[in-house]
């Protein structure tokens, strides 16, 4: 049972935290719309304000290193409350030997070094390290859950979409900062994410999502087609099907034939994940208006974390940014540095 610490009295912060743990959610990924969006700050804030829960924390690459490897600026360390499961290098865990339990050496490496699964025996602040691939991250998250973690948070990387697209991910937190662009650009990106999160789940299961498949009067059919990204590829022969599952991405390059097909099509177009729609804002808008897109795995955005600070100096007024986002989206919004 996850409890929110009593000092959180402000409604929107409580709501943001409670929302993370409602239902059967086990895996939450934090993605940033840009680098230095404040993912670690958000994760630390969440972990500081929950109690009675055993959680796991994972990262894509490194998290909590004292200096940013690219920018060189100071970065926050990962805060790990007692009982938190985490992964790191042997060289790092050795500096905290009395404060942790070593569970096992994992079969994965990061930058050629072995990763170790540990559990904090008291509150710790250190650098956590994760494996590079989504499959490995999901596998470790499942190991953490098997060891007793009730919830696992994955601090995503720049390649945020790959981890968010994994079927096992229950929800997503989006960290927003002016590093991405000005307020209009941020709002536009959030709008796009919001639109994608509104794509409903298809009521069918696809056994092998690598291949195009469809259902018509003769039943279910699987093809050998792995991608629709060929200019000469035509969907016309599937026009009379009840639904069609399109593997891979739908991009601007093939938007026109896909749009023409959908206009004449009566069934549902099913995609693997909303992030498979790699389309410009206007094209996405037009596609969404047709109301025929469904997905196998939904994009559940559980909250938006606003950070008005920009490492490169492109700061935005914190109050304006928070308020504009709150007004525009029906998703819990938090700024961990907000004064109430």
């Amino acid at each position, binding site marked *: 049972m996850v409890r929110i610490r009593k*000092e*959180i*009295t*402000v409604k929107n*912060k409580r709501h943001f935290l409670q929302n993370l743990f409602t239902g059967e959610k086990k895996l939450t990924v934090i993605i940033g719309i840009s680098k230095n969006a404040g993912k670690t700050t958000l994760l630390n*804030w969440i972990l500081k304000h929950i109690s009675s829960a055993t959680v796991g924390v994972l990262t894509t690459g490194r998290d909590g290193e004292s200096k940013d490897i690219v920018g060189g600026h100071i970065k926050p360390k990962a805060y790990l409350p007692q009982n938190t499961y985490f992964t790191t290098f*042997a060289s790092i*865990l*050795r500096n905290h*030997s*009395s404060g*942790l*339990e*070593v*569970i*096992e*050496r994992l079969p994965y490496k990061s930058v050629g070094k072995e990763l*170790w699964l540990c*559990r904090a*025996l*008291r*509150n710790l602040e250190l650098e956590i390290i994760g494996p590079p691939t989504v499959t490995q991250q999901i596998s470790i998250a499942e190991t953490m859950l098997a060891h007793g973690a009730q919830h696992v948070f994955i601090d995503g990387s720049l390649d945020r979409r790959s981890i968010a697209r994994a079927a096992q991910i229950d929800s997503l937190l989006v960290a927003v900062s002016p590093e991405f662009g000005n307020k209009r650009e941020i709002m536009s990106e959030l709008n796009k994410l919001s639109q994608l999160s509104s794509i409903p789940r298809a009521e069918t299961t696809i056994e092998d999502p690598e291949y195009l498949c469809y259902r018509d009067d003769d039943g279910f059919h699987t093809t050998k087609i792995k991608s629709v990204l060929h200019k000469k590829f035509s969907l016309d022969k599937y026009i009379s099907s009840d639904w069609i599952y399109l593997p891979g991405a739908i991009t601007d390059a093939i938007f026109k034939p896909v749009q023409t097909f959908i206009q004449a099509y009566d069934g549902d177009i099913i995609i693997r994940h909303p992030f498979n729609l790699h389309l410009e804002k206007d094209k996405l808008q037009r596609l969404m208006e047709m109301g025929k897109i469904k997905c196998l795995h939904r994009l559940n955005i559980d909250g938006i974390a606003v950070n*008005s*600070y920009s490492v490169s*100096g492109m*700061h*935005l*007024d*914190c*109050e*304006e940014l928070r308020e504009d986002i709150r007004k525009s989206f029906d998703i819990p919004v938090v*700024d*961990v*540095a*907000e*004064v*109430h």
Partner: protein
Amino acid sequence: MNREVNMVIDDVTKKSANLHEIDALINPISQVGKKYKKNPHIFKPGEEKEAEQEYSQLSFLINLIKKQKGFVPELTSLLMHIESIEITFSRAKSLYTLEVNEIQQIKQFVFYLNQLFESLKKYKADHVLHIPPFDELFIFLDKDGHNSPAFHLSDSYSDDYSSHKQSVRQLIRKKEEIYWNTLEQAKEELDLADIEPRLVVSRQNKPLLEKLSGSPRFYPESENFANCIFKLRKTEEILALEEEIKKAERKLSQAEIKVRELITKVISVYATDLFSAGEKVAKFDYLLARALFGVQNQCCIPEVTKNSNLYFEDAINIPTKKSLEQSGMKYQPVGLKMQRHVAIITGSNMGGKTTILKTSAQLIYCLIHAIPTPCKRASLPLVDFIFFSGIKPERMDLSSFASEIVAINEALQKPGSGLFLLDEFARGTNPQEGSALSRALIKYLKNSSHLVLCATHFSELSQFKSVDHFRVIGLTADQYRALDLQRQDILSRRLQELHKYMNYELEAVEADSPAPRAALMIADILGINEEIIKTATSYLENKENK
């Protein structure tokens, strides 16, 4: 050249005889087993008894696997956790203070070793793997009695360590309490509903900026054109506590090193036994993998003979069988019963002569590794090395003929008795000289202790006395006429049709029996231009008439 004089089986032979594919089917589970598989014991002539003992253990395991369905899954779940940590054992033995993660690895090793021992006892198989239980060591490493492979430096190891640990914990807790109280006080003083230790305030919010600027609880950390950032000021008490924590942590670190030294000392006593247990598990895991291979491929336990000839019944060439089955064709098992140590095999093209050689190589490969042999029955001798000719040139500066000559020369220099598999030796030169060279080689090998199987089309070789002669039964003229090739325009279908009628069995024949001539027939079946076949036939007829 890849071939080396002292190698039991060189890479070229391994590749030519598909031995890698046999190897790939033997999969130890543990890290130690996988490592052992890379350099396993190879049974040499003179070690027949040892090989038989190994096969006797395999036979026991094969029966156990067949009878007890839970045996393999249970052992797999334990073996998969046994890691190769010889370096850590060596460090412990040399009393290098082990790090906490190294101690965990040793605890995990002991945990699963003890479980493996218990499991083998349960299945009455503990005689196959003699490992002493490390109960006392495990109890020492599992001070808090969690009975898990995870490890932490328990307070129970030392009062001094425990008290320093408690002291650090209390100081941190105290600091955190004061910090949160300070934040709560700041909240009340500033009359705010919620604040965090780090705050961002818009420059446009003048009242809040004034409030925070005037508060002794916060200090401006930084500012920019849009916002001001404030941070909670640490009180004197917090700063003093932080200093105290640093000092306490230094003392804790020293106490912790002493605990790790103590643990290392205890482990060092067991280091040699742990090392040896790891080796035994590695061998056992490899044994289990071979037993499983035997079950999965319907293998038999061969008789390890000192005779210098081959005998096997219904042998399966696993890679060929798989390949045929993938193409929808059925594999025909083959047998061989040699009386002497040299055998000449003749037969039509596509009759499976090379497959017989490869199969023999695979069976002997299995034997020298004490792997159950994929056949119904076998009686096979141990050899010092296996040599397979008929390979593609490996070097750009050698022709295929030259490469073959260099390779066989190297093989002839190897010490001991080898298995020579000669696949159409000297086919890369003119038939007269090739035939002479082959005959000379067979004569040379006949006077050696090597075991020789020679597949050839040279009819002069069939005249050799005091060697075994075999012929692939192949395809009769009637069967050839019965083939339905008219409608088979695709090569794979033609091959299927040929495979349906081809008899791959070997029959023993007398010396001087003529070598079969079916090249034109096979070329026709494979779909070569009819005009070419006709012309070739006329050439042959003209020659015979002359």
